[in-house]
């Protein structure tokens, strides 16, 4: 089998085409958002919100409402509860996050177990790339497009929020509002991505691409390009490998992203482990020679 046949064969199946489309959209969207999350220090918050949307999605399913609506409500509920626990106790934020999101996630698990359903709601947890229906795909496209458009159009405000909230305040903007919008977009993105890799692994797609891009450049504008390009390539690679190995698709997508992170971590020209070690060695040699 030559390379073209290798790439073309899966595309003969509608479910594979849909899986690839959802993966590309989810990977690119998560990657763009992850650039801000990594810089603001919201990786744990991304973890929390992406898990906490689970009961919202299940309740939306029961009520026949859009998943995004339930996700938004529970995303904000999680953030409010985390802030509340943090501010009214002596607990630090990581403890508050740990308590709140696991509680909400558990509510989701319990709701799934008691909800009679003709679709397997466990797919929300582990993702079900190969079972994406046409209407699922449309929801992903629509939500993804809206979220992506807001992120790109207001990117300068989000970047200023990440870099210097006091300056944003001094210009009469509301850092609180910008932060709330970003959290809302995080909840929407979680809905898009849980179709691809499931609630548990969404956080990987929300952290790894931004972190990878951050190791490769010191310009935010470039991060916003590098992150989605790498994440999308990794996503496509993951889907193909999972097809031929008959392995978990969501798991493979995340593993492919992690592999690219590892490569950047080792080989990034400026900040990679090898480059910094070599530079240190070079400095030592120069120092020794000058003595």
């Amino acid at each position, binding site marked *: 089998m030559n390379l073209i046949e290798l790439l073309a064969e899966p595309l003969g199946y509608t479910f594979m085409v849909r899986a690839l489309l959802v993966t590309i959209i989810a990977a690119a969207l998560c990657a763009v958002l992850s650039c801000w999350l990594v*810089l603001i220090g919201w990786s744990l918050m991304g973890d929390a919100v992406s898990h906490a949307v689970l009961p919202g999605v299940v309740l939306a399913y029961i009520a026949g409402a859009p998943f995004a609506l339930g996700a938004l409500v529970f995303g904000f509920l999680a953030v409010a509860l985390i802030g509340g626990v943090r501010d009214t106790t002596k607990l630090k934020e990581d403890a508050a996050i740990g308590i709140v999101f696991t509680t909400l996630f558990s509510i989701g698990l319990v709701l799934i177990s008691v909800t009679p359903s003709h679709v397997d709601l466990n797919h929300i947890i582990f993702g079900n790339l190969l079972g994406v229906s046409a209407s699922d795909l449309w929801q992903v496209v629509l939500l993804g497009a809206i979220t992506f458009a807001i992120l790109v*159009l*207001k990117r*300068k*405000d989000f*970047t*200023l929020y*990440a*870099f*210097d909230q*006091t*300056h944003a*305040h*001094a*210009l*009469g*903007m509301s850092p609180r509002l910008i932060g709330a919008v970003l959290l809302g977009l995080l909840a929407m993105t979680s809905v898009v991505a849980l179709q691809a890799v499931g609630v548990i692994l969404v956080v990987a797609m929300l952290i790894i691409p931004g972190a990878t891009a*951050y190791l490769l*450049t*010191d*310009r*935010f504008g*470039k*991060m916003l390009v590098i992150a989605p390009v790498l994440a999308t390539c990794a996503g496509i690679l993951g889907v193909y490998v999972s097809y031929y190995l008959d392995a978990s698709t969501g798991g493979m997508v995340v593993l492919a992203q992690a592999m690219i992170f590892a490569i950047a971590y080792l080989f990034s020209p400026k900040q990679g482990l090898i480059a910094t070690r070599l530079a240190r060695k070079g400095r030592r040699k120069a120092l020794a020679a000058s003595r």
Partner: protein
Amino acid sequence: MNAKQSTALAIDVTGATVHYGPVLALDHASLQLGRGRVCGLVGMNGSGKSTLFKTIMGQIKPDTGSVRINGTDPLQARKSGQLAYVPQSEAVDWSFPISVREVVMTGRYGQMGWTRRAKKKDHAAVDEALERVELANFADRQIGQLSGGQKKRAFVARCIAQGASIMLLDEPFAGVDKRSEATITKLLREVADDGGSVLISTHDLHALPELADEAVLLMRKVLMHGDPDVVLQAENLALAFGLDPMKRGGK
């Protein structure tokens, strides 16, 4: 600029009291600063300098008292870009992937549309500001790749590009080399000569008489406000610090 604005005080804080829980941070503090003046804010750690800054910025609403900026409501003043802020070094993420030019450009955001797209006049303002702080050759460096003094100058350039009439600087001379300190001092004097008002919190008492037109001694309330040479006399500093930090003895 209308007549009302041109006669109003730049900063007018009256009787501001701020609590953090049970801790009293500001106790009926009042501070009036006129146009074209440079004012040094002096006090111990915990004397309420940062709280006073935050009150002026509108980040903290005082329990009692009021704040007026250029004779108007602080939010209105902020929205029209009249207030600019230079953060303490510790408050900045120096590894953030942003260039010096991009930092200065954020000073222009208030004048841009909702997508913050830079126009010709924005680029011109940024270039001019970078020239004035002598950082034109460093414009494309990542912000962390500057020396301590250059970093400060980058943020001063942001204030200049913003065209703010009031500048607040929190410890601008901490970890700054002499040359940058001189450049910043000269710039702030120019800003004041153009009618701008500058409020600086500083530990560098020796540099104050040359830099500032007036000095304020803060210990939760304003103990003294006047000529720097008078405010910095040993017996006055003793009120705020409990000792003579300039070690000039009885002079």
